[in-house]
């Protein structure tokens, strides 16, 4: 199996946010926001549509018995989505571990930028 291409950063963010479990759309947004890169709801849903189409994410009914929550829909990673996320995470870690990236990071100033630089590579 050949190496998959790197994921787009926002897709990685969404998948990573969803690693937490079954979430409604707003909760995914909050998760992403808490990592420091806020995302517009409409962008999230546009990406969700592709992820649903690719079979990386699936839609579930509300896990709560509460009827008042019924109009909210929940999303979770599929096995394939989880594999893609894991592969991408490994790739980022490997990249971050490489000599060259460490050199750049130590020469540079910011501390949190290494992850982003890597994921955009």
């Amino acid at each position, binding site marked *: *199996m*050949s190496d*998959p*291409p790197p994921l787009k950063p926002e897709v990685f963010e969404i998948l990573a946010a969803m690693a937490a479990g079954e979430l*409604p*759309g*707003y909760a995914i*947004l909050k998760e992403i926001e808490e990592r420091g890169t806020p995302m*517009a*709801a*409409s*962008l*999230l*849903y*546009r990406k*969700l*549509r592709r992820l*649903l*189409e*690719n*079979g*990386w994410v699936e839609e579930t009914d509300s896990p709560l018995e*509460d*009827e*008042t*929550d*019924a*109009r*909210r*829909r929940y999303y979770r990673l599929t096995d*394939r989505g989880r594999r*893609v996320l894991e592969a991408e995470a490994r790739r980022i870690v490997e990249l971050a571990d490489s000599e060259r990236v460490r050199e750049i990071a130590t020469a540079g100033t910011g501390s949190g930028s290494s992850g982003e630089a890597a994921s955009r590579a």
Partner: protein
Amino acid sequence: MPEASGSSDRRSPSPTRDPAEDRAQRILRSMLSLYPASFRRELGADLVETLLERRRALLLGRGQRGGFSFWLTDGLRFATDGVLERISTLAEIGHDARSALRQLRRAPGFHLLVVLTVALGIAASTAMFTVADAVVFRSLPYPDAENLFALHSRFGGAEFSSTSLGNFRDLQRGTGAFSWLVAVRDRSPALTGAGDPERLSVLDVTEGYLEGLAARIVAGRAPQPADHQAGAPPVAVLSWGLWKRRFGGDPGVIGSSVQLDGVSHSVIGVAGPGFRDPGPLETGRPTAAWIPIRDDDPAWAARGDSLHTVLARRSPRVPLEATKAEASRIGAALAEAHPEDNTFNGAPLEYVLEPLHDLTVGSEARLRVLLILGASGLLLVLACVNVANLLLSRGEARGAELSTRNALGASDARIARQLLVESVSLSCLGAIAGLGLGSLAIRAFRSIAPAEIPRLHEVGVDLRAVLFAFVLALVTGAAFGALPALHGARSFHGSTASRISSGRRSSRTQSLLVAVQMALALSLVAGAALLLGSFRNLLATDPGFRPDDLLVVDMRPPGESRDLEGHRRFYTELLDRVGALPGVEEAALSFTVPTKPGGAFAPVRAEGEPTPESLVFHLFNPIQGNLFATLGIPLLAGRSFTGDESADGPMVAVINERAAREFFPADRDPVGRRLALGGEPEAPLREVIGVVGDVRQSGPTEEPRPQIYVPYSQGRVNRLLLALRVAPGLEPPVDEIRALITEMAPGMPIDDLRTMREWIDRSIAVQRFLTLLVTAFGALALFLAVIGTYSTASCAATRRLRELGIRQALGAARGALVFDTLARAAAVAGLGAAGGLVVTGIASRWLEGNLYGLSALDPAILSAVALLLLGAAVFAALGPTLRAVRVDPMRVLGAD
């Protein structure tokens, strides 16, 4: 969590929310219309919910300012994302199409073959659809065409298409069931004046004919009521064709006069090029002019002369059944009021409505057109199956690519969609090429189609044809793409082992497809072979006379049409002088000659026999000179006419064998027996003085019929044809004949001058054409089936390369391997051929009516076709198989 709504209905605003939130929800929902429908359906409502949640959070945190900020950031982004989503949805299909084009460039030869195959199928079916549409399906090109009828006169079992003007007047007065009612009579006057005299087809029409059919007048005017009044000067509306041909399209012709049979008609108008008279009024020659019938026309007074065709448009307010009852009632009333003219053979007159469309198209032509449409449909299905097969074999080669894409995250649905977009793109390319080919085919069709195919002038590529081609392309693209898409989606999954099993499955599918192709090809090739065999039979049919070196001249005698004595003198002199021309061996005059349409018919009664209950009309033929020697009809018994027979001398007749058997079944030799022509008991008896051989009067497609020959002097008709036998190998003296006739009858046009061969060719033109078309389809079908077998064999050979390698390495003889592979190909083809025979058996009843001298299930032809296809299949499989076994087994095994 923010406050919850009590309602589970996501669509209506919840009453528990505050009005500002309801408003926000309404705005967001209306903004959703910026998104593509598929997005709205899947995620729209949930997105709005999430946005509302975000708005609530912002309001909680920052109050009123949070609300503003929501609309400025999330709201704006929501709107722009809608547009972006729309664009990227379009872009995805565009992406698939671009990737399809990339595929195309990657294997140009393969895709060219696919596009060409589709183009052939679409071209054939679009061309034939266009023909069928124009000839059969579309309504006639007149306003309210569904309500147009011809009124036929029925007397018991006999139906006639014509009516007298006298009766027409009563029809006009007697009923309100028709919104339009006209009577039309075709005539063939001679046009004289500037240029050569010419025989024209003109229609005498009652008031409203051209207007009722919405004929466009491009110059001058249509006839007005005043033109129909008694004493009005004779006027004519010219056809576009005559105007262009004889008058060079000069608008100055309006107001000038033309001489028709010596009567001066002033030209009042010219009809547009698009106008054609309804089918039943067509005479073989295009109508040259329309002439208003005047109220002082003597034909109005005649009730006995049925010379006019009556056309009617039913009033939509009156139910069809009531209209029919009305027509039949008027007929009955006429029969009561004027029994002498309106009863026939004891049966009273009854008017019946015949739909103009049916009369124009005719059931035979309709059946033939549908037959070719069906054949082209089979060809299209065959092309589709072929392409599905080709794509399947290619899909296998693309297994690796698809499986990579799948591993990269493309879902099954996504890959299936890509494959479908690919096949639909291919079929659309095929449709474009097919439309090009199809319009060439239609042009060719129009130029070679015989005039017997009705409404040919209406055939042409139009919007309907283009739509048809693209609908076909979409349907066929989806149809032949579906199978590879399904297979493709399955084939790349999982391990090599499962891929091998899916390879086996697709090889079974391919074999099935090849069998289907064989079946379809066999039925088309069988149809072609049967028609070819039948056409050969037609050519080999003995017409009963010698058609070579014969010339037929159609013309009228000069002078008054009732000057019978003048005609007799003219014909006698003509015969003498033509017989003296160099190169003319025999010459005779005859009312009809075989294969040239037309003839006179009369009931025949043998002496001593009672008048039969229902009258059967038989061909009788007034002749002068030795017609039998001229045509080469053998005299079997008795003698021919001497030429000295006269109207007041003993009445005589020569009959053919068929007539001898029909009227004198008990006599071995009917010479000396007597018969009467005509249904009346007082019809004079004629002595049979000779018996001649049978001829196929209407061409080789029809069996000989009874025929009675009588001397011209004892059976006067208004005109005779001149038949000449010229010395073999000599050019017929056409110029001398023309000069002679011009000298003897100045101002009389020669209506027609043709060799007998030309008449025979015309009589079998429809069969020739049908055979040509179906043979072309058969050849294409054979070609496609061979391609299908070849590609499957190539594919199978590649797949089995390893197996063959191992077997060869283990010492299997190459010959045995080749035999084994070919046997498989033959088995598949044999299965298909068997299926094809069944299809042919089912289709045979539509073909039967077009076959002569053989059955649609002719065993010799069908088995020859089956063998041909089997041979072609084995031959097509041979190349790939030989290539496969020639590969070094060690290289194949080493490749793994």
